[in-house]
């Protein structure tokens, strides 16, 4: 039987507020254990939470950017379960009245555009972190708790089960990440756990409308793991079903080292969270005016930006999609073009040499040694014919190492393109004289042989000869 996967994601994203969701403690990552704590986030007797207004603002912005309806009336609830990383033994979250509902995200799959619906976005607090003396709590003599992360604000973005392949799940998560970064509400540093997903997947016979039993994999924090874990799990479920077995509704963990998912907790052992309205926080009332005011603060979002790049500069959908996948990259592009550079050349350079160098050195585009202004100037030199594209690669590498302007580099290194017909002609004549065999082949009808002759001219001109002129002169003289 042929099966179709049904995939839904719950993405947890840490919001980049300076302080925690219900107290004034810092949220910064990597501090010494239990230094960013106070009576409130430690859940001492008698303390009360106070909602950080920035958290609400960021959640609303995220909702707007993900095309959600923002609820005018929303509230917090207590999600009750016992675990030592949760000082109150409940997580303050939102249950039946989340701040945002009914949104969507469009993704570009290999089969075209697909809309993934967003069920809801709610605000909640993060838990602390257990530090075991051994590898797991089971084989540890002692376990300590670091409460620094307790109360760090999160939003949980819940999708409808609209994805059917691991690729779609990855694309959806990438898009959500990109949007959250665009609106600047989350750092989305996946290696720090800023962005992580719970993956829900079930199988059903292709064409069936009935959902199968699902399994869940929690806290997946890389795009690669999203695809790998889902692929593994789909295959595993397929095998179980093919063998006539039943899928058990359960939580499974993804072991990236072994590349397998493992059973963790079955539904029978699942928590009854005994949700109840949080009586220590007042309901959140947000007026339409406030919502519209937040909407006005949103920057141009990836989809709109991509469409603009396509229509305004004639970039391909693919190129525009790559450039707008990150706000920083898109802003870099805009700055290069604003400096007067040709947009298509700018796109090629950004996706080519710039990205290659950035990736090789692990640098973010906003920290690029070659800033948008200098890249724009360099592209202008190509357009003017001062340097060839080939020479430009050399200029770019020089710029990567030094703060000099491209003009200065070109001048200092003598890289100006030779456009003097006489100078080129001299080299051409010499090359024709030195390569009788190639000349003979060309004249004998093997037109391809001109390539090696052009190569010789370029080599002798140290790459500075205008390639177009070289071509023209050679053709003229040989024909």
């Amino acid at each position: 039987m042929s099966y179709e996967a049904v995939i839904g994601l719950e993405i947890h994203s840490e919001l980049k507020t300076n302080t925690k969701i219900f107290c004034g403690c810092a949220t910064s990552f990597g501090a010494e254990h239990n230094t960013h704590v106070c009576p409130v986030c430690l859940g001492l007797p008698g303390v009360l939470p106070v909602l950080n207004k920035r958290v609400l603002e960021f959640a609303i912005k995220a909702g707007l950017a993900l095309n959600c309806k923002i609820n005018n009336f929303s509230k917090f609830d207590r999600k009750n379960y016992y675990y030592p990383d949760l000082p109150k033994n409940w997580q303050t979250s939102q249950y039946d009245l989340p701040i945002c509902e009914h949104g969507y995200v469009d993704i570009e799959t290999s089969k075209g555009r697909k809309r993934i619906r967003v069920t809801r976005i709610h605000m909640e607090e993060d838990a602390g972190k257990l530090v075991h003396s051994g590898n797991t709590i089971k084989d540890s003599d002692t376990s300590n708790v670091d409460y620094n992360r307790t109360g760090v604000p999160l939003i949980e973005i819940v999708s409808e089960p609209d994805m059917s392949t691991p690729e779609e799940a990855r694309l959806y998560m990438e898009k959500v990440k990109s949007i959250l970064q665009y609106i600047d509400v989350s750092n989305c540093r996946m290696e720090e756990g800023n962005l992580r997903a719970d993956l829900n997947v079930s199988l059903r016979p292709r064409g069936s409308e009935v959902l199968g039993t699902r399994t869940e994999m929690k806290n997946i924090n890389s795009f690669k793991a999203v695809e790998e874990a889902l692929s593994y799990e789909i295959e595993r479920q397929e095998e179980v079903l093919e063998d006539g077995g039943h899928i058990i509704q359960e939580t499974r963990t993804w072991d990236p080292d072994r590349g397998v998912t493992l059973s963790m907790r079955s539904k029978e052992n699942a928590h009854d969270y005994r949700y109840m309205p949080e009586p220590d926080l007042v309901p959140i009332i947000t007026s339409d005016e406030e919502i519209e005011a937040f909407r006005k603060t949103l920057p141009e979002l990836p989809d709109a930006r991509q469409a603009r790049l396509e229509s305004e500069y004639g970039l391909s959908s693919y190129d525009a999609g790559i450039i707008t996948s990150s706000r920083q990259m898109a802003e870099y592009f805009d700055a290069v073009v604003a400096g007067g550079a040709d947009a298509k050349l700018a796109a090629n350079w950004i996706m080519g040499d710039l990205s290659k160098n950035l990736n090789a050195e692990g640098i973010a585009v906003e920290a690029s040694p070659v800033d948008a202004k200098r890249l724009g100037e360099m592209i202008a030199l190509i357009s003017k014919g001062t340097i060839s594209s080939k020479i430009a690669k050399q200029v770019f590498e020089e710029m990567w190492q030094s703060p000099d302007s491209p003009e200065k580099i070109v001048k200092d290194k003598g890289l100006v393109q030779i456009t003097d017909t006489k100078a080129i002609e001299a080299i051409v004549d010499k090359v024709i004289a030195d390569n009788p065999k190639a000349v003979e082949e060309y004249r004998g009808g093997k037109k391809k042989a001109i390539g090696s002759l052009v190569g010789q001219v370029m080599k002798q001109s140290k790459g500075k000869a205008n390639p177009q002129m070289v071509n023209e002169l050679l053709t003229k003289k040989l024909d």
Partner: protein
Amino acid sequence: MKLFEKPAHVLHDMLVNKEITSLELTESVLTRIDEVEGEVQAYLTVTREEALAQAKAVDEKIAGGEAISFLEGIPGAIKDNICTKGIKTTCASRILQKFVPPYDATVVSKLNAQQPVVLGKTNLDEFAMGGSTENSAYHATHNPWNTACVPGGSSGGSAAAVAAGTAVWALGSDTGGSIRQPASFCGVVGMKPTYGRVSRYGLVAYASSLDQIGPITRDVTDCANILNIIAGRDEMDSTSLDQPVPDFTKALVQDVKGLKIGLPKEYFVKGMDAEVEAAVKAAVKQLEAMGAEVAEISLPNTDYAISTYYLIAPAEAATNLARYDGVSYGERVEGAADLVEMMTKTRTQYLGEEVKRRIMIGNYALSAGYYDAYYLKALKVRRLVKEDYDRAFRDVDVIICPTAPSVAYKLGEKIDNPLEMYLQDACTVPLNLAGLPGISVPCGYNRENMPIGMQIIGRALDEETLLRVAYTYEQSQSYHEDRAQLGGK
């Protein structure tokens, strides 16, 4: 009247007029504690040295010609579920037997700004769950009017101390009657302000949507003065109301002319002690004689209030008390094999029976499959109870009823019957559900000379009318000048 027996406003005037020093006063109260605390056992912690130091500091200030505020230099006590920085706060529970808060509750900060003399922390039913103070994990408190009787609860320690002369004033907390009922049993004044009028920050939560801190005092004047100090919006408590706080002492006028009093017929029925009913009705007659108009009213959902309360309060308590797990503070059972065993044994051993009962009820009410039938329905009935009052307050200015259906009963009399104990809250619980203010003032004695309390209920944020009615009644009588006889006198 001895120094330790006087109300705070009289003592304040004596301090201002340099008739006494704070040290004399504090020593007088500390001596009283030495004499009668063995019988009453109102305190869990007495901070004798700190109290004496505070008294001396105030005396220096007065000697230096500085003005003093109302409570300055006047010894009082704080219920032991209100956090006091550096002073043990146990909630009368074993699980917090060594817990010393690193911070002050907002009400304590506000009081401390007045430089009162704090004598210590008073006894209560564990985590404020109970109506007799017998549920304290440490010891029961005895009623100063008859030490064989309970002082009421859960603020039994605070009420007993004020009645026994071992504190001039005290703070209590009221979730279902825990200030008003012990005030009634001990013949003192106790007020539960409007929900949100006083910050709950630092009050160890029992049931968050019902808890409210309030004063327990010897007369209405002291009550108004202390309410002035503790009321007001607090940024640390999202549920505290951002409403202007009037000067409550301005409400201390003897005038009830034209005031409309409602007598809810549902509060004067089954189980009501005849002497209590007679005393409250006589008090209402007295107010009528002074110009108030009296009408019978109906609060039809009163019967459901107790069941509603005993779902909502335990549900909130079940989550509020989940934090006492032995992980990061409080007591812990050592030697457990794993985490679950550690938490289970810790809670089993260090939480009391009544606390565990309410945690069980609460978790049951919140469980999947039961939530709609119990908790959700309780929330709906809560709204109905509130609507009863809203309707009644269209026609009347205050509602009057007994604070408790009986006078103080004997220790041990009801402790084995939780249900009967719960029914004692019938007159007080509905206000907490509705968030309304209520005050209990003494209105007589039964034939065994045990005090009877009258409860005056007002509109939300209208503590002023409550105080005016209470003050007018108080001044027409002399019950507030009576003192419990203790120490063999």
